[in-house]
């Protein structure tokens, strides 16, 4: 009696291994799900968060930032430094310095959401590499934009 149960257990156990093997074998014939980077790239989702970047004004092409410092005050990691002044003859302040310490940034997006004029957005830059830390801890976001000063 004991032996009969034992044999049944062994057979059932062996069968369960075969069932598992079927799944494993089946996987050999499906297309790979991985993407062979860098030869192929996966599509970036619309909400992708790269480092933050400054948007230019549509008309003047100057940086949109009015140096209200809301982003710097709200940033949990204090990684934004922004100062501004009035360009000659202008009524409103504009940013003359906007530095991001990307080494501390957690890409939370609070700065992007808190900006009253929508001057910030996430870039779609993901392949970031550099030889020096300085390239990331003092990123000048106004660099590529037209300066009003």
């Amino acid at each position, binding site marked *: 009696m004991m032996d009969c149960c034992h044999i049944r257990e062994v057979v059932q156990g062996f069968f*369960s291994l075969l069932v*598992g093997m*079927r*799944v494993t074998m089946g996987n050999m014939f499906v297309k790979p799900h991985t993407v062979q980077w860098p030869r192929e790239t996966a599509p970036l989702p619309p909400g992708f968060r790269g480092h933050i970047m400054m948007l230019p004004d549509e008309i003047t092409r100057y940086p949109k930032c009015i140096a209200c410092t809301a982003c710097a005050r709200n940033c*949990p990691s204090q990684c934004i430094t922004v100062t501004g002044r009035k360009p000659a003859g202008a009524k409103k302040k504009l940013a003359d310095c906007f530095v991001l310490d990307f080494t501390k940034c957690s890409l939370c*997006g609070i700065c992007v959401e808190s900006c009253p004029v929508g001057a910030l957005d996430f870039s779609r830059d993901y392949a970031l590499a550099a030889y020096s830390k300085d390239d990331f801890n003092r990123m000048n976001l106004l660099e590529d934009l037209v300066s009003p000063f």
Partner: protein
Amino acid sequence: MKEQAPTYTLEQIDEENFALNLGPQHPGTHGVLRVILHMDGEYILYADPILGYGHRMQEKVAENMTYLQVLPYVCRMDYLGALSYNLAWVCAVEKLCEFEVPDRASVVRVIATELNRISSHLLWWGAYLLDLGAFTPFLQAFTDRELILDLLEYITGSRLTYCYFRFGGLPSDVDDVFLTGVRDFIEGFRGRLKNYHDLVTGNVIFYHRSADVGVILPFDAAGYGLSGPVLRGSGFAYDVRRHEPYSGYDRFDFEIPVEETGDCMARYNVRMAEIEQSMNIIEQALNTIPDGPIRSKVPKIIKPPEGEVTMAVETPRGELVIYIVSDGTKKPYRVKYRVPSFSNLSIFAKLARGQLLADALAVLGSFDLVIPEVDR
């Protein structure tokens, strides 16, 4: 009373009796957990978990930040179930300030959180079986988890430490691409879940590695303050989503999976059944998602009235409780997190005694611990 670690005289230490240092960098501990095991050959005499390698003073940090600034940090405690933490924090602050949340936002929150729960359970499934020595399940689970990550990345912008909910609602609405994506995923995954059971649940090796291993008696489960699937594996049908509903969970019809045996197999079965229940919830949510606004009007600077609030949320690992005391300023006066993994880990020392080393790792894996959450 806490039992003292045994001490040895030099004569007692030989190749049979020794202290084995497991971790802090050991794949079986899933994070920086260190366990000092006092061994007698292959058997464990005494296990002493040592915590705190990943301590980041989350609670103290929260006292020095505004309510909004804490939000992204909370999600970094449990990197596998970030949206549950996100939900807990926003719900706690909303309860404290009495903010309204539009219906559509609540439903989307439920969809996202349940997707996150499935992805967390899938990762656990793969990693647990890797602990037990099976490699195919790991790849199988990660393939399906990847589909969920893509969906969540589409709406939240991040792949792991999501931070998608805001006080009073959501920052951005979900579109039809996401909703059909979720529907397709659920449909496809229901079929593939059968493979999971074929591959593992009925497997004889898995059965012998997990049945009757690490049995938690109901008395201990209650006494040690366990929660989540670990508690439900010991016969308690307790789920915060049912017993203290938040974010509109009372509108959905779902079962609480319970197992009586309390061993690793029971915890496994509970989680597998929970995946199915999560899919049921998501399907109901997709069918009833209302149109309308996604965010109610809340002030830019959150200044809650003086008072305190307690908010409990069911994370993939168990019951998370957030306690906030407000003194009426922009920053919380005191924040306390009661995290599930910490309590679940507390019973490990008791369970490990007298076990084989390999079984102790199976028990540790069956708890689904996230160590940054334990250390916080």
